[in-house]
């Protein structure tokens, strides 16, 4: 592996693609994201098919959703996508410290998003919108909760990566891991774009 670093000890400019292993990791991750697309697609299809089955006396999406919280959560997640891009850019210019800081900021945004989502679900349960209230509520919690679980996993993953970079530094082995984690984070953001569009905004329109 050391043969892939430059003579002066610097990393190549795209360290995540400097080795065959790194390139395969990125390609393999795209295949995984293709599978994730199908997974979320099935959850979306279930939600779309069941979203009008609210039942008698249960809160409807129009009564339930608060656009302000959703808008805030959206801006948090979009901004975290930008900070993860900055982390990858710092990696490409071989600046390890800024990269770690951008990753930490990304994780903090992820935690803020999760906090908002927990608050939101807690609020909904008090409004009588529980997991087993109606077909709508079950498909809602399954879809949005699954996305939240992905955010949580991403937070854990990137935190562990930060610890590993601290320990082992940035090299052609650790760089693909950071790159792939960044891709994962963007993907989570893309899924959220469809959730706020299909679940919240279309739910509010009716």
């Amino acid at each position, binding site marked *: 592996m050391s043969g892939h670093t430059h003579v002066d000890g610097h990393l190549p400019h795209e360290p995540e693609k400097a080795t065959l292993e790194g390139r395969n990791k990125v390609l393999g991750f795209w295949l995984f*994201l293709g599978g994730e697309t199908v997974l979320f697609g099935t959850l*979306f299809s279930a939600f779309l098919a069941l979203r009008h089955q609210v039942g008698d006396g249960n809160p409807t999406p129009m009564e339930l959703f608060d656009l302000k919280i959703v808008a805030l959560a*959206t801006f948090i997640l979009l901004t975290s996508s930008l900070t993860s891009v900055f982390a990858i850019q710092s990696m490409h210019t071989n600046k390890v410290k800024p990269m770690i800081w951008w990753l930490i900021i990304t994780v903090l945004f992820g935690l803020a998003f999760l906090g908002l989502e927990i608050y939101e679900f807690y609020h909904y349960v008090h409004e009588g919108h529980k997991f087993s209230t109606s077909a709508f509520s079950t498909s809602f919690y399954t879809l949005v909760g699954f996305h939240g679980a992905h955010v949580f996993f991403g937070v854990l993953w990137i935190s562990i990566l930060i610890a590993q970079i601290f320990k082992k530094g940035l090299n052609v082995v650790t760089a693909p891991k950071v790159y792939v984690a960044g891709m994962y984070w963007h993907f989570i953001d893309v899924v959220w774009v469809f959730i706020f569009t299909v679940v919240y905004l279309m739910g509010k*329109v009716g």
Partner: protein
Amino acid sequence: MANQHSAAEEKKHHKHEGPKKHIIAFIFSILLTVIAFAMVAAGEINTTFIYFMLVLMAILQVFVQMGFWMHMKDRGHVFPIVGILSGVVIVFTIVIMAEYWAWW
């Protein structure tokens, strides 16, 4: 592998870097989001039109996110595009099927 990169190519890579285009992409995605939320918040607009616009905003947003931030517009991304597109085709099939299967 590093040796295969010519000096000119590395210079080109450097030129591609820089936060500017990412900040522009970010502003675009924020703008698309604001438009989507504002339309729904304003209400009183034709529902079919809002649905159409919301889906359009979401698709544009995906192009910004995947194209710029996941580097799909860069060269050497044929496999990822084929992979994601095949996923999207399956997803559309499932969504359309679920809608009709459930309420036909």
